[in-house]
């Protein structure tokens, strides 16, 4: 007992030392191994789940070209948002070297990420690619991918419906769209499938009502500001009502009309690919899933979402597209070697054959760089590139408030399930904007 008494303080101290040193070690181990070795290890947080394996392969290819650099690809858990994951990793003091983010998130992180204005690729980026990530004249993000969305059609189905080769340019009014739906139904197939996910309805469909206001983005921003101030009305807005008229038509011909909300994302590519429906409202990112059911020999394309019955109105011939995913480089925990390695990785994507091959052919991404001349690898990417090159592209709303898709997506679901009418939807949109951040 005496021995115990004397030694108890020491045991106690020892216990604390063990606990504390354990903490200290784990925090330091990452760095010490980096500086002691010539090899640099960098990490990339991937928020495009569908290209996880392609990115891992690209990391291997990059490692072959640059044996000193290892890139580890981390994934954002399915359904999680890149912002949530990245802020959690920052809070734990363990941020990845590179983070793939949505456009609207970049501003929040600008104090913590590197200024990339001096990088060579800035000069080769397509028009407007870095506008939304430039603050005080400094660009903070690498534009990784252009994505676009609209009505995807299965050419085999619509060819049969119109009795000949289908010409997408004939669909430029709501009436023409309904006519096509009728023709498809008459040919014995279902017209379309409406996927009821809140992100699809809230982040893609509804924002067409804002973006379609004017060809000039500055005017669109003014409209959004007026919504925030409560001075603009959505209820009697022409574009909004036209867009919702089209939505009414979509609801009427929806294959899942009986229980509109029980459909899932996975159902869309299956029905479209197998040719059970002719049309699906979605974007080019869904190509890998469609191709696994493909029965139309890879012939698919986009139709615009019409907002009126006047073919000349802006939006009736345009496809919504924008740079959607960005890469930012951490400046807080990443060492100068890691930062240099990460910059090298970005250059590799833009300027090396293997990098370009990964981007366009492997990951099916539409690049945001003029110097990459490889044509898109898949029919949906090709279709979007075609619209862009003909000047028929409408800038997507990629910097909406973070909870827009969730809150107004729910309002759209309510409309889709016919639990609320258009007046309620308009009221909820106006209410949302008054309190939106």
């Amino acid at each position, binding site marked *: 007992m005496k021995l115990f008494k004397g030694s108890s303080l020491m045991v106690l101290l020892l216990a604390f030392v063990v606990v504390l040193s354990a903490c200290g070690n784990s925090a330091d181990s990452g760095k010490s191994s980096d500086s002691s070795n010539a090899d640099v290890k960098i990490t990339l947080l991937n928020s495009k789940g569908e290209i996880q394996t392609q990115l891992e392969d690209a990391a291997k290819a990059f490692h072959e070209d640059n044996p000193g650099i290892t890139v580890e690809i981390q994934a954002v858990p399915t359904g999680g948002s890149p912002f949530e994951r990245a802020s959690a990793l920052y809070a734990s003091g363990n941020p990845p070297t590179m983070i793939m983010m949505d456009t609207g998130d970049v501003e929040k992180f600008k104090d913590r990420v590197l200024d990339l204005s001096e990088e060579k690729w800035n000069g080769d980026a397509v028009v407007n690619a870095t506008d939304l990530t430039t603050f005080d004249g400094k660009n903070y993000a690498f534009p990784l991918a252009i994505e676009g969305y609209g009505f995807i059609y299965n050419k085999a189905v619509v060819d049969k419906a119109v009795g000949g080769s289908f010409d997408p340019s004939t669909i430029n009014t709501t009436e023409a769209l309904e006519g096509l739906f009728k023709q498809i139904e008459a040919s014995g197939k279902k017209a379309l499938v409406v996927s009821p996910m809140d992100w699809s309805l809230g982040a893609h469909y509804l924002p067409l009502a804002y973006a379609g206001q004017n060809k000039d983005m500055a005017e669109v921003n003014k409209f959004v500001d007026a919504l925030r101030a409560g001075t603009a009305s959505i209820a009697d807005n022409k574009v909004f009502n036209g867009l919702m008229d089209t939505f009414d038509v979509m609801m009427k011909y929806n294959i899942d009309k009986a229980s509109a*909300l*029980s459909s899932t994302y996975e159902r869309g590519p299956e029905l479209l690919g197998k040719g059970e429906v002719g049309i699906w409202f979605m974007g080019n990112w869904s190509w890998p899933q469609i191709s696994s059911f493909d029965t139309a020999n890879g012939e698919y394309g986009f139709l615009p979402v019409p907002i009126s019955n006047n073919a000349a109105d802006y939006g009736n011939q345009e496809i919504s597209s924008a740079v959607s995913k960005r890469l930012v480089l951490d400046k807080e925990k990443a060492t100068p070697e890691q930062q240099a390695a990460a910059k090298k990785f970005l250059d590799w994507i833009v300027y090396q054959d293997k990098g370009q091959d990964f981007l366009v052919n492997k990951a099916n991404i539409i690049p945001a760089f003029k110097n990459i001349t490889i044509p898109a690898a898949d029919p949906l990417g090709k279709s979007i590139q075609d619209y862009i090159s003909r000047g028929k592209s409408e800038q997507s709303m990629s910097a909406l408030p973070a909870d827009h898709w969730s809150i107004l997506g729910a309002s759209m679901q309510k409309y889709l399930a016919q639990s609320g009418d258009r007046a309620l939807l308009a009221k909820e949109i106006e209410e949302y904007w008054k309190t939106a951040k």
Partner: protein
Amino acid sequence: MITEKGVWNRLRLRLLFTGPTLFTFITVMIIPFLYGIYLTFTNWDGISTTQTMVGFQNYGAVFRDADFWKSFGLTLKYVLFTVVFTNVLAFLLAYVLTKGIKGQSFFRAGFFLPNLVGGIVLGFIWQFIFNNVLVYIGQQAGIGIFSASWLADPDKAFWTLVIVTVWQYAGYMMVIYVAGLSGVPGDVLEAASIDGASGWLKMVKMTIPLMIPSFIVCIFLSLQRGFMVYDVNLSLTKGGPFKSTEFVSMHVYQKAFLSRDYGVGQAEALVLFLLVAAITLLQVYFSKKLEVEA
């Protein structure tokens, strides 16, 4: 019993045993909690390097956030149904499975099993059942109530959450009730039988009063779990359809991390903490008064 002489000696010995736990408790519970309270007075968005003090503005926002109170009301309704159904079912199961029927250990293990499955996995399994299996059966057999997915209808989606929760927790509570039932002294019941008490009378007048401690624990646990539910809510309905089944934990999380309103989210979390603490403390306080000695 600490018998050491002198304040320093006593403190030293206390620290030897409680020190490590105390250290962990303070660093991972108390400090984050206090820091959280501090954050309720700022307008932090969760990531920026600067934060401004905004006083009690966030608390004002909590009381103006109609969706928060709506989701709190919905959570209360959910808690009411899950607490009642879980405990009634758990007690019945425990009663039947202490009668000495054949294979009762096997049944006990079977009913306990859902607890071993994590909430997220469980949510996905039931999502598949409600979205596909039941709909398929409903359509093939022409059972109207199952022919469309329950998860697409606000009311039915709420009941799926109640059903899955009761199914998950009833087995766990059953184990506690089994222990409580076995603890009821046989001689008391025997004496009651000799005095001519029927089975029902014995149950109401003897067994249940003697099992009050089990009820306190079970109701406390199911209350607390009901209020804090998140995993099943997330994986089964994601708060849908159109946010009609968004319980309060999910709302707080979305406020903080989705709307990037960390200060308000944190303030809502604190308000929720105070409300739940008050409700559970009251429950324990009042049910303690019902305790009797054999």
